[in-house]
């Protein structure tokens, strides 16, 4: 068996959530399928209490799985490969993004939700992604319907998402990235066609000096813009409240590969930036391609 069945569970009560996911988990155990759960602590407690004693479900409780989309893919693929090598007929996953992922960094998690339809497809996976409709923004729920072929909905309905969008389309369409609040102010740094050294030197001038991870990502972004982009390369940076935002824009269409950044494809630089930065947003606008990098500043 191969292929990724990728369902959303959009719930509005604990009872509804349990009515869907408990049979899903118990079914996995009964079928001898590795059954993995990555949930917020609150939801995990709720589900753990609803399961019969004796276990069989593996709770991935370290909280780091959903720190960054590229890291989640890397971690899950390793897990899946291990289970498949161990003879698992299928693997069941119950996942819930942390609440903060549904806010200003949702754009890269939306890309994750779209991408995993394909990137987990080489494994026999049945995954359920749970979203609490009481706290999930409407825009996020709209993306959930576009990135999951089917949804479990309130009232016990299981519906085909008619707006489901092929990942290759979803990942390359123009999805405007909301501005970071810091971007409403004039940039601290503004450079046109910087050399790699000039770009790093300018960002290093921010105090306290940004962490190495952001400098690496900035250098890779400028490298990519110069090597693969078109027209002028523009770097801008903003600083505030313990973090730095750096955007690098060129006049080209952006990476051809829909999965760029999420998978270790091509030159790896964009992927490593996704692994090391606190947030990476990609914006394929009419005026060009912008990569926006966010990094924390070290504590003074």
């Amino acid at each position, binding site marked *: 068996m191969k292929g990724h069945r990728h369902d959303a569970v959009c719930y509005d009560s604990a009872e509804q959530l349990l009515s869907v996911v408990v049979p899903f988990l118990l079914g996995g155990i009964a079928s001898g399928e590795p059954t993995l759960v990555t949930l917020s602590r609150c939801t995990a407690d709720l589900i753990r209490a609803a399961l019969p004693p004796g276990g069989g479900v593996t709770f991935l409780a370290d909280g780091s799985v959903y720190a960054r989309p590229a890291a989640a893919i890397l971690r899950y693929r390793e897990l899946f490969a291990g289970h498949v090598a161990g003879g698992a007929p299928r693997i069941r996953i119950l996942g819930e993004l942390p609440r903060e992922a549904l806010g200003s960094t949702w754009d890269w998690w939306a890309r994750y939700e779209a991408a995993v339809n394909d990137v987990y497809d080489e494994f026999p996976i049945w995954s359920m992604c749970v979203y609490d409709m009481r706290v999930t923004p409407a825009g996020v729920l709209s993306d959930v319907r576009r990135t999951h072929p089917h949804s479990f909905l309130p009232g016990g309905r299981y519906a085909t998402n008619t707006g489901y969008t092929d990942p290759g389309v979803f990942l390359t369409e123009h999805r405007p990235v909301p501005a970071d609040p810091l971007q409403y102010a004039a940039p601290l740094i503004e450079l046109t066609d910087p050399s790699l050294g000039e770009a790093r030197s300018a960002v290093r001038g921010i105090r306290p000096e940004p962490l190495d*991870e952001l400098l*690496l990502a900035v250098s890779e972004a400028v490298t990519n813009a110069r090597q693969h982009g078109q027209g002028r390369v523009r770097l801008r940076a903003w600083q505030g409240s313990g973090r730095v935002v750096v955007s690098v824009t060129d006049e080209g269409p952006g990476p051809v590969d829909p999965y760029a950044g999420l998978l270790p494809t091509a030159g*790896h630089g964009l992927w490593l930036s996704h692994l090391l930065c606190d947030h990476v947003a990609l914006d394929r606008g009419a005026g060009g391609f912008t990569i926006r990098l966010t990094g924390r500043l070290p504590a003074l």
Partner: protein
Amino acid sequence: MTHTCWSYDDHQAFVAHARSFLHAGLEAGERVWYVPGPRSNGVVGWLLDEAPAWPEGTVRVLDPLEVYRPDQPFDPAAQMAAYVSATEDAVAAGFTGLRVVGDGTAMVRTRQRLDAFVRYEYAIGRYMRTAPLQAVCVYDRAELGERAVTELACVHASSNAAQVPFQLHAGRTSAETVLAGEVDAAAEDLFLSLFERADLRPADGEIVIHATGLAFITHRCLIGLQRHAERRCLTLVIRTRLRTVAPMAEALALTSLRVEAVA
């Protein structure tokens, strides 16, 4: 001891630096040699004027054609042996060491000779870490061009050229090297090429890169180092303060690299 690369366009800056460097050697009781090139001979008059004030054999201005023999194939080992012998002679004659300002421009005019001279510069740097030999290696930027001068400057412990992106110079043993500066996409090929030419020899299966002064390196360089290590069946130990090196090596499964964080 000092091993500096001085590439020049500006004669005045070179003359001032060479005079200061040689004068410090005289004051320190060292034997001083000056091997001028056609455009780096601005210290000859001053040095010959100084010579009588010092014991016989202290100062020598050498003919560059005699020292470097650009008409013959360059032999890095023989050149190194000549300087080792000259250093030992200086010490045997009662000097505290040997100090040299030498213009090597004539030696590096072809790609082949440049490659060989880079190997020599790296190797003599190791000898100079412990032996009483100090040198300023002089190159004419106008004649050699930026790329060749940068290549030479990168294998010295220090350089006057602002555009040199990194230094890869000798460690205490042939199993150690020192890397400082920034190796970005524009410098990757040069770095990996110089790393090959450093001719490092593992000790107990390991080569150590002391990279406490490393401010930036790309994952492509790490991949290049991994390939080098795999090809030679060794482990490369990278000692660095950079927070990015270990996670890059882990994410890319560069198992022949061992990254050690240093404070």
